[in-house]
């Protein structure tokens, strides 16, 4: 197996890089950089001018400058909160150590820090929630999609149900999910907050469909020749699914997963607002209720953060798709 060395991933990467370096064209590179930068600069100017024209009861609409200021203040708030937190724990430890020295039988208790979640904490909460919801939806949608795609009759039976539930807004699901979670998820020492569970399942319910449909379509449209190969080899059902069906459907599956993750992230913000899950949605809602002169600027920071994170999630999915899929020509929009 001498040919194995040339397909080694590390060598491939090196080869790829050297090819790219050889193709490096400064003029092309500059224009490819220049155009997006121009776009952004023009947008910032228009935004700056436009924002100044809009007056609200909380002052003018936030422009780029406000956003920069507010993001700095949010970051400083985060840093300050962290310092307070470490100081809080340090004080406790000192106090406990002192009491232990006085009275060796004393068993110290550590109180957790009661301070409020910062913007950064809220971003983190949102990410955890969306990924958990997306994971649950994928775990349900992929196997179901495969089962539906394998049989025409199942597909026809299930299709109307999918089509009806697919366009339902998260806001419609939320009250139902909230009530069900309150009724079902009862525990004295809950591992997760109810608001987290509610947001998670709302995300799941809304992001299930694209993966489900795409997986089913991908499975249903496997090349007939490949199915014939499987028949000639008399592959057992399970091997057939593992060796032929799943690899065939992977490009479609990932297209679905990318759409699902996009929807999950969009739905999450609405779900968090209503469920009061301490993430970005709650941040936006709290700032809106707060109504200080900084509020609109802070909301705008959240809007941009939501956009950037959504973009990053999509890129990560695309990278994952390219790593996993055999079909390297899959769309890259």
């Amino acid at each position: 197996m001498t040919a194995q060395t040339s397909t080694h991933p590390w060598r491939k990467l090196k080869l790829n890089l050297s090819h790219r370096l050889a193709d490096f064209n400064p003029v092309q590179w500059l224009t490819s950089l220049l155009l997006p930068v121009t776009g952004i600069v023009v947008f910032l100017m228009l935004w700056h001018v436009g924002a100044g024209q809009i007056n609200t009861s909380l002052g003018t609409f936030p422009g780029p400058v406000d956003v920069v200021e507010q993001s700095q203040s949010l970051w400083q708030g985060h840093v300050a909160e962290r310092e307070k937190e470490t100081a809080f724990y340090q004080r406790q430890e000192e106090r406990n150590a002192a009491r232990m020295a006085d009275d060796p039988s004393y068993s110290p208790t550590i109180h957790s820090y009661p301070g409020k979640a910062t913007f950064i904490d809220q971003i983190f909460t949102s990410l955890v929630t969306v990924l958990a919801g997306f994971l649950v939806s994928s775990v349900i949608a992929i196997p179901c999609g495969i089962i539906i795609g394998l049989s025409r009759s199942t597909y026809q039976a299930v299709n109307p149900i999918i089509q009806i539930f697919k366009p339902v807004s998260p806001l419609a699901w939320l009250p139902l999910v909230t009530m069900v979670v309150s009724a079902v998820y009862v525990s004295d020492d809950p591992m997760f907050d109810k608001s987290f569970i509610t947001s998670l399942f709302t995300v799941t319910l809304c992001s299930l469909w694209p993966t489900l449909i795409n997986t089913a379509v991908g499975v249903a449209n496997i090349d007939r020749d490949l199915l014939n190969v499987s028949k000639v080899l008399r592959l057992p059902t399970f091997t057939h699914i593992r060796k032929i069906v799943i690899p065939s459907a992977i490009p479609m599956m990932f297209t679905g997963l990318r759409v699902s993750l996009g929807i999950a992230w969009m739905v999450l913000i609405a779900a968090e607002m209503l469920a009061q899950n301490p993430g970005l949605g709650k941040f936006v809602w709290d700032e809106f209720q707060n109504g200080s002169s900084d509020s609109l600027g802070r909301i705008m920071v959240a809007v941009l953060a939501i956009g950037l994170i959504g973009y990053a999630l999509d890129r990560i999915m695309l990278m994952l798709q390219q790593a996993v899929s055999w079909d390297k020509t899959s769309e890259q929009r």
Partner: protein
Amino acid sequence: MTQTHLELSGVGIDFPTPKGPFTALSNVNLKVRDGEFVSLIGHSGCGKSTVLNIVAGLHQATRGGVLLNGKEVDEPGPERAVVFQNHSLLPWLTAWENVELAVKRVFGKTKSRAELKDWIAHNLELVHMGHAMHKRPGEISGGMKQRVGIARALAMQPSVLLLDEPFGALDALTRAHLQDSLMDIQSQLGTTVIMITHDVDEAVLLSDRIVMMTNGPSATVGQILEVDLERPRNRLALADDVHYNHLRSAVLTFLYEKQRKIEPISSRATATTPAKKKTEVA
């Protein structure tokens, strides 16, 4: 004459259509000896592929049946390996892995790991793919893909090898190359082969017998031509051979005089594009 290896008796098939059943084949009779190379030739749409699919077990005959070594064929199986026109390799697996899938399925329980490995390598070498064993189908040429397809089929050690226009989608030079390879391999292994083709030269060069099919509907065997050219055959030497040319013109006469197919220009244009000829009589 050795014993009959494969026998089609009174095979007919109807396909359901909205206007009632369409009889694609009727009363197809054929006996194939062990180690024989038989070609099926006929105009497109005559049901050549359907015959092959029935032998493969991918279609069920409505009437009659197929016997292989005295056993009736009723489902697909590796003892009747098929090489499809469009290679049908799994694109996410390398050449090696494609052959491995078949080998493990057929010999996974009877051969040791080392034996399996040797067997895969042996079959890839046989089709001269030793140098590109670990490439994926997307990285190799059409001819190479078809070689791997043949290796995969041969690796199952089939009782009969079914080739469905195996070289139809290839350019003339590659095709000639692969025909020579196939001739070589068949004489080495003595495999029984049924090949569908629409190339007269290919049929005469490779076959022991050429089965010429009439036009559908209700297509059947029109005439069988015995190709008694000595083996090994050399395409260059045969080009000037009187007997070869005589056989060739016999096939041509059948196709273009006795079974002349008159089609409107538009459908003819699609019929002569081999790559598109997939649907057959569906």
